[in-house]
């Protein structure tokens, strides 16, 4: 609270970049957790809530005629533009927000003050919703070759690893300890995914401290044991996801990669995914492209190319595909590492898992996968997402890239995923919003020390409860091509720009009618019809019985008939055959006085046109409280409106 210099500013204007007509005047409030804008005079749905922890940057622009512009740039790629009449107010808001959006301590994060109306038991239940033990046993572990080794229970061997780790049964404690000493940060090779059908595994670690010539017997034994735990294979792959040059440079620092001569029966492979700094810059460029105001086609495509973003996505996908093919087609185990084994390694292991196992293409499966490969294995969410003020160089969109790989796969395999795009976007928001405790801190140990489970809530149950919004109506789990390994094409033209993520708040850029929403409505209605049908069949059957036996069951028939007459009394729901599900609501139109005779460049460029429909819809909050409408912005901004768009 002490950071709020100015709790309320009036006559603030909220600017919609795509149309000056959508500008709203209202009051800006700063609370301990949110920036709130309440539009004046207009009815409901015009409030804008922005969580401070979702704010990436606050920028003051040069004063304009109408006032002092203030930009709030959010981590979900929303950019909010205010114009504040007084310079001093603008400055106060700027200073307050700058501080509020850069928490110094975990305790300042929203998840610690977020207090939905649930009791302790329910909170604990939310944390129990996902159980990694159950996930490993789903894979078929432990079994006679793999078991949980308690060595890291106290996080002594490796403080960034989870407490429970699967290693080959044949591996002794000294081997584990020896191997961990030979790996960056003690991240020794351990199991990530086990393929029940052919016993091949995906294991992960950090880079070996091999330098130019060092070797470690225990580490070699470790790999040997992993290889032998897959009885069907004669060798294993060791995949270094870094570009060869980077890995070689690491040798000079006493790190590096496995020497094929020292390890028995390994095939070593570089993949060439760039490091976190390259990815950060790449996404920055991509965001700049996505935010261009009416770019030409050439500017957009050149910008997309120069960002290199899709090239990186492609390289991650190719790495995942290589590993999943090794496991599924060759039956060969794979050890994956990068430098520390928590960024590229997490990406590649989880992409491979999605390709390999249909379970990860279900709602719960994807949650488990993120919980396992990312949260438990110590992906540094706090650093990578910039939850706290700190090293800007540690921030990187590593998990964004994983979610995007899944999205790219959904584009290629529309029937293979139980969830839809909205699910991925919701997860993305929650990773950054610090609304729930799941993605706070950098490791399991840190979360335990901070007592996250006692102080905050878990997002997974919350998402599960909203699963109807996240279902893919086209999902066909039984289809043979959705079973087993997905083999995506990695031709360049198969990788597309993810408009829904990067331009989510530019409503005018999206299709005005959504196939997804249509199909979801139809499916929902189909379900109701099925229920009604069952009821009618029942009634019919009873009437027939009644006719046949001439038995008068007063009570019963009363009950049955009342049920069916009450339905029959509401024919407007069903009469007319076709459901009225796609009917368009005509968007509110503004009076269209185009200044065609005025500014010619404007009128002749329809792209620039003012002809927009509808008042800006700010119902999509950037994460709010439980009681607020459509918290966490999963609401599809398009679903409720059709009508004229930018012409």
């Amino acid at each position: 609270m002490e950071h709020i210099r100015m709790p309320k500013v009036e006559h603030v204007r909220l600017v919609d970049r795509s149309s000056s007509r959508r500008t709203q005047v209202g009051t800006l409030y700063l609370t301990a957790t949110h920036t709130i804008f309440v539009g004046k005079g207009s009815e409901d749905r015009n409030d804008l809530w922005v969580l401070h922890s979702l704010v990436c940057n606050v920028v003051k622009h040069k004063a304009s005629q109408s006032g002092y512009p203030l930009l709030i740039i959010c981590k979900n790629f929303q950019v909010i533009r205010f114009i504040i009449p007084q310079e001093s107010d603008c400055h106060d808001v700027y200073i307050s927000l700058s501080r509020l959006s850069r928490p110094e301590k975990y305790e300042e994060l929203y998840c610690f003050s977020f207090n939905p109306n649930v009791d302790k038991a329910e909170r604990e239940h939310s944390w129990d919703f996902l159980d990694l033990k159950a996930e490993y046993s789903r894979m078929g572990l432990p079994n006679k070759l793999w078991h949980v080794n308690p060595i890291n229970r106290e996080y002594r061997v490796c403080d960034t690893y989870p407490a429970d780790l699967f290693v080959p049964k044949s591996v002794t404690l000294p081997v584990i300890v020896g191997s961990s000493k030979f790996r960056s940060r003690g991240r020794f090779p351990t199991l990530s995914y086990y393929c029940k059908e052919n016993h091949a595994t995906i294991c992960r670690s950090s880079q070996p401290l091999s330098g130019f010539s060092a070797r470690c017997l225990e580490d070699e034994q470790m790999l040997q044991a992993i290889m032998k735990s897959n009885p069907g294979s004669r060798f294993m792959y060791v995949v270094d996801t870094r570009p060869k040059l980077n890995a070689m440079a690491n040798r000079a620092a006493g790190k590096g990669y496995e020497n094929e001569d020292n390890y028995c029966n390994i095939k070593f492979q570089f993949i060439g995914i760039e490091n976190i700094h390259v990815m950060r810059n790449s996404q920055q460029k991509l965001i700049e492209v996505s935010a261009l105001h009416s770019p030409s086609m050439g500017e957009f495509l050149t910008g997309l190319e120069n960002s290199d973003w899709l090239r990186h996505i492609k390289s991650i996908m190719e790495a995942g595909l290589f590993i999943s093919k090794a496991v599924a087609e060759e039956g060969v185990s794979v050890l994956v590492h990068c430098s520390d084994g928590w960024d590229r390694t997490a990406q590649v292991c989880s992409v491979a898992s999605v390709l390999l196992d249909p379970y990860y293409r279900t709602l719960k499966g994807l949650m488990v996968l993120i919980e396992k490969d990312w949260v438990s294995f110590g992906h540094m969410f706090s650093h990578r997402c910039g939850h706290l003020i700190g090293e800007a160089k540690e921030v990187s969109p590593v998990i964004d890239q994983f979610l995007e790989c899944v999205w790219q796969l959904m584009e290629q395999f529309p029937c293979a995923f139980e969830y839809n795009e909205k699910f991925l976007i919701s997860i993305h928001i929650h990773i950054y919003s610090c609304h729930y405790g799941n993605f706070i801190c950098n490791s399991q140990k840190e979360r335990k020390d901070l007592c996250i489970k006692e102080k905050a809530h878990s997002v997974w149950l919350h998402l599960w409860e909203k699963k109807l919004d996240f279902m893919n109506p086209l999902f066909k789990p039984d289809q043979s091509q959705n079973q087993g390994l997905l083999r995506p094409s990695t031709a360049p033209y198969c990788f597309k720009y993810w408009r829904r993520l990067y331009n989510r708040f530019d409503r005018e850029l999206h299709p005005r009618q959504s196939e997804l929403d249509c199909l979801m409505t139809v499916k929902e209605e189909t379900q109701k019809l099925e229920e009604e049908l069952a009821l009618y069949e029942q009634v019919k059957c009873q009437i027939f019985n009644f006719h046949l036996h001439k038995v008068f069951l007063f009570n019963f028939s009363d009950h049955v008939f009342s049920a069916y007459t009450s339905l029959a009394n509401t024919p407007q729901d069903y009469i007319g055959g076709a459901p009225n599900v796609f009917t368009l609501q005509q968007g509110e139109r503004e009076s269209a006085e185009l200044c065609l005779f005025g500014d010619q460049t404007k009128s002749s460029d329809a792209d620039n046109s003012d002809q927009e429909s509808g008042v800006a819809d700010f119902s999509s909050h950037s994460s709010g409280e439980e009681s607020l409408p459509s918290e966490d912005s999963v609401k599809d901004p398009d679903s409720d409106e059709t009508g004229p768009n930018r012409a």
Partner: protein
Amino acid sequence: MEFAELIKTPRVDGVVLRRPFMPTVEGTLCLTGHHLILSSRQDNTEELWLLHANIDSTEKRFVGSLGTIIVKCKDLRVIQLDIPGMEECLNIASSIEALSTLDSVSLMYPFFYRPLFEVIEDGWQSFVPEESFKDLESMTDEWRLSEVNKDFSVCPSYPSLLTVPRDIDDESLCKAASFRHGGRFPVLSYYHKKNGMVIMRAAQPLTGTNGRRCKEDEKLINATLCAGKRGYIIDTRTIAVAQQAKARGGGFEQEANYPQWRRIHKAIERSNVLQDSLIKLVEACNDQSHSMDRWLSKLEASNWQSNVKEILTTACLAAQCIDREGASVLVHGTEGTDSTLQVTSLAQIILDPACRTIRGFEVLIEREWLQAGHPFQQRCAQSAYSNGKLRSEAPVFLLFLDCVWQILRQFPCSFQFNENLLIMLFEHAYASQFGTFLGNCVAERGKLQLSQKTVSLWSWVNRPQELERFLNPLYEPNNLVIWPSVAPQSLLLWEGVFLRWNRSTKCLDEAYQEMVHIIEYNKELQNKVNSLRRQLAQLETEDSPLQTP
């Protein structure tokens, strides 16, 4: 038949056909007057029947005595034929070459094709100008149907019947025609029922360097304006291009002579530039290098998406003037047969819900493209693999279809038809068994006696069995004007055409089938529930005496 002498080797055994994403087929290759046929003569394998007219170019390669012919088609597919024997291969190659480049229209397949189906509704008679004029008459009496061009002497590329302002007599029309490129004087293209505004189209005025004017032309277009109202002239060319046209006798409407009109210049490319764009785009799509940078830079360099954006933007502008500004519009470029038609037809799709039905879309193509004199024969003579010297080829119609597809993607529930209809039209515009897209204008089609000697595409499309393939399961009539987004982020590459042969569509087809299934199942349940409800209501009335003892 004169084809016999062109076919040096009619049949070769042991030919292997290779196509991406399809199993190779070994079989017998046969050449007929109009088809290249490859059959393995086994029951379960697909036969290849390829129209010679579909072949855009061929390449030969030899390894020892095994010859390979790469056949590149106008529908963008590329197939490979491995032919044993050097001589056979050379013979086949030269025969294909000769048969696919026949000059005479009357030798084209449509003149030989006999339908295997019964023609129920003759497509040649389906779209009569008098019919659409009747619709117009029911809304307004400001227009009349003129026969001034009945012998095609006033404007060779126009149809014989034209809708013009009621108060303008035929004599004035002739004078206006002499002031417009190719005699294409302003005629009605679209009447917007909601507010009575119209789109007219024409060719450029022949002002020349000394600023000629024509009172009749001015009177003609002014007659379409309400008192005190202004209109817009959308010139599809940039001002620079329009200026240059003056030197060749063309030009644009001078403000001084058309004070009630405001002129807006847009930048839709000329046909030869568009052809180049298509060639580059298809080259990018076929690039095997697997490099992301290369793909994106080639896509960008092709300018195809920019062309889509520009055409769509111009069409939106025209629609905007009509619907929002309440002003009439005259559209023209140079000749009024290419970009002009793209703009007027797309504007109608945006404005008029009727054009989004199958029938309405057919009417639109018939009226705004075929009757309006888009030179299909010239524009579609060669496609993306044309390596020879180009004459007047250009993917003007394909770009129009691409733009329609973009709108369809953005309004997936507002069209009665689906993507398949658009792809089918693309194929048939370039090579077809039907006569619909032969010739360059109504007059030529009449001379060729197409309606007597060939079958109309519409006769085939409008059969219920065929129509089913083109129906959009999500369609729900939408009476609103639909405004597409023209931002680069919103415009997609039309994969159904450009990546059609470069990828497996199994998963996408499956998704489409599932969508159809979801909707059909829903309808089935609706019907069941309705009929049960009726049954129960009946039973209830029968039972009611019993129930109230």
